[in-house]
């Protein structure tokens, strides 16, 4: 491949408070990966621990990849092309060590198979971003992967919910959970 055509690694920038809760990202993700509409098998999942505070929860592609480090079977690796975490389904034993290692507890087990689900950026053309942009919600946006602290975005659903509740509801937000 000529140098000019070589794809730059990407990151999905996110503005969570704009999420409408439409879950079209889950529909797109599961159709792409599973050929079914399967919300719980989607690598991006919209949490709604309180109504109005919906947001997509998905891999932040930490700069130091603690999940990859933690994998005892080396089933996880980093794509040299996109920067995404790749899961080798044959090697993954479903031990959950990567979930423990993730600061945001983002990886989750496939509903029917003994393997972990982590966003693979759809090989460089993330379907969740496509539908989010198409709907003009713009919660998700593709940006070049540069040297930023992406790990800050690996947060648990509870942590994110608490922050967004205050942003969206103000003082009331503290009492809603």
């Amino acid at each position, binding site marked *: 491949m000529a140098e000019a055509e070589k794809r730059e690694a990407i990151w999905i920038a996110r503005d969570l408070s*704009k999420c*409408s*809760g*439409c*879950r*079209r990202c889950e*529909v797109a993700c*599961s*159709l792409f990966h*599973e*050929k*079914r*509409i*399967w*919300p*719980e*098998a989607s690598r991006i*999942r919209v*949490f*709604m*621990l*309180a*109504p*109005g505070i919906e947001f997509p*929860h998905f891999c932040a592609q930490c700069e130091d990849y603690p999940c990859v480090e933690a994998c005892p079977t080396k089933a996880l690796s980093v794509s040299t092309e996109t920067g995404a975490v790749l899961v080798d389904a044959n090697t993954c034993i*479903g*031990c*959950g060590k990567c*979930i423990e290692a993730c600061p945001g*507890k*983002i*990886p*989750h*087990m496939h*509903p*029917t198979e003994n393997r*972990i689900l982590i966003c693979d950026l759809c090989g460089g053309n993330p379907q969740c971003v496509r539908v989010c942009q*198409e*709907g*003009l*919600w713009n919660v998700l946006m593709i940006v070049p992967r540069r040297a930023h602290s992406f790990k800050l975005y690996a947060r*648990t*659903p509870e942590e994110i919910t608490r922050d967004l509740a205050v942003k*969206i*509801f*103000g*003082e*009331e937000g503290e009492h*809603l*959970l």
Partner: protein
Amino acid sequence: MIFGYAGKFLEVDLSTQNIKEVRFSDEVLMDYVGGRGLAAKVLWDRLGSRWETVDPLGPENLLLFLAGPLTGFFPGGRICVSGKSPQCNGVVGSTVGGEFGVDLRCAGYDGVIVVGEAEKPVYLFIKDGDVEIRDASRIWGMNAKQTVAFLTKECRELLKKRYPKKGEWREPSILYIGPAGENKVRTAVVAAKWSHAAGYGGYGAVMGAKKLKAVAVKGTGPLPEVADLEAVQRLMQDVCNNAYESELWRRWGTGAAGYDVGAKQSSEPVRNWQEEWHDERSFGVDQFENRVWVKSYWGDFGCPTTCLKLAVVRAGKFKGAITDNPDYELQAYLGTNLGIFTPEGNVYLASVIDDLGLCGIQTGNVLGFAAELFQRGILTKEDLDGIEPKWGKAEAFAALARKIAYREGVGSLLAEGTYRAALKIGELKGVDVMPYAVQVKGIGVGAHGIRSEKDYPEVYSYACSVQGGDHTSVAFMPLDEPRSEHIRVFDDSGVICFFNTFGIPRNLVFDFYKAVTGIELTKEEWVNIKAMKIIQLQRAMLLLGGPDLQWNPEIHDDNPLRFYEPLPSGPFKGKTVEKARVDEEKRKYYELVGWDERGIPKSDFLKRLGLDDVDKALEKLR
């Protein structure tokens, strides 16, 4: 085999705690689809022979939560709630948005049928094939926000404990009742999230009578297999593209109508329908958008329209109030109908109504009725337990709503809904107050008037509907016109959101049905045969009614008396509905749907549809 169905329905008997799976034949599913259609079929088969004796609030009634084959596929998630209605004593297909139908189908069920009545408060927790009846005594009495917070936490903790290696569990989808449902208030809703509600029909009261506080479901499987996945994906995209093209509809939802319908069409209830016109700029959509909406796009599963908006009052005496939009119906019924013309007052009252688990439309209707009786001196401050419901006083209406939800004092009377309250007040006061009751067959009329004839319902639309005053299902000629209830019953049976069908060719919806199920269905077949059967079943059960009320179509297939008064203001001042014209249109409509001159479905018409048992049951009314 029919594609697109999970294939099983869950049946839970709360009296015996027996839980089983039931199935319906392909034939039944092809004829009645799901949701409202299937509800009518199940209710007729199980209760039809003794319909008049079944108390809607007794253990014999069924409570149905039914999805349809299109639920989850057609953009915008909904579920249909039904049973014998404590408002009209017939059957209403009452749908509510949210992820419940999707989660339920991912758990392997197309619906839940609840029978019997629990001894103590319970809730159902469904995780795929694991179904539990759990104690709800700790949440009985909780308001909407408390209930959702409690169940979200409890169910996630249960899932985490049972499946520790799965990773973070998402919240289950929840349908629940607030205090109003618990107290069997006839204007109580079955709610989702904080402010989504299946309002028409009064099924919150049925849930309360069964002591069922909530149903929570988490399904981890995929949606059912479809006949043609490629076609489904293409059609989903078509529906989405259509929605994306109407940006202002997405941006404002139905929220633009709170001003528009009053100012331009002059068909919005103002002060209990004494007027249908206002030109209050303070109620403009820009005011809602700029003052209270904190999220301009808020939607349910797969929805491209996201017509909901999250509203928060940030300052002033109503600070802290949270609700959605309010949508047009609640802008009207908890706004203009009560003389309230500010977004803040409207959001505040809607949030109170949400928290109590009341229906904004039906409760706004009965509050307006009470306020007009107060205005006329028929009900006094003493009658109203010291509350003075003056037009525009949001706090007074909130106080009255609380009385209703807890059935305290005068609240117990108003908790019966406008029609029943009118009967009782008339008796108590020796005055006929029915002229102020704006309802049809026990159901308060939706916020779309007919006097200006600029809105969508026709002069016979409510009078002839099988769901009374329900604005989402009105009679219309020709029967295959999008607003006709013969078409809308497909949306409620599919189960899909009507708002995502705006602007797309109707045939696309039937193409969608075929792509999902593999079954060819034309609009003609639907309207003339399948929808016609469902409508006849609903009509039969509505007319059989009982045990406390029965409708005589010669009297009750009519508009509220108020609609025969001339409009007193606005661009259509003086316009009214002529009774003779209503009668003439009614005759034409009866002819079209096979009802005799008294409004009873005709014997040969029913037999031609294969509804011989319905024909026999109606013999006593002829």
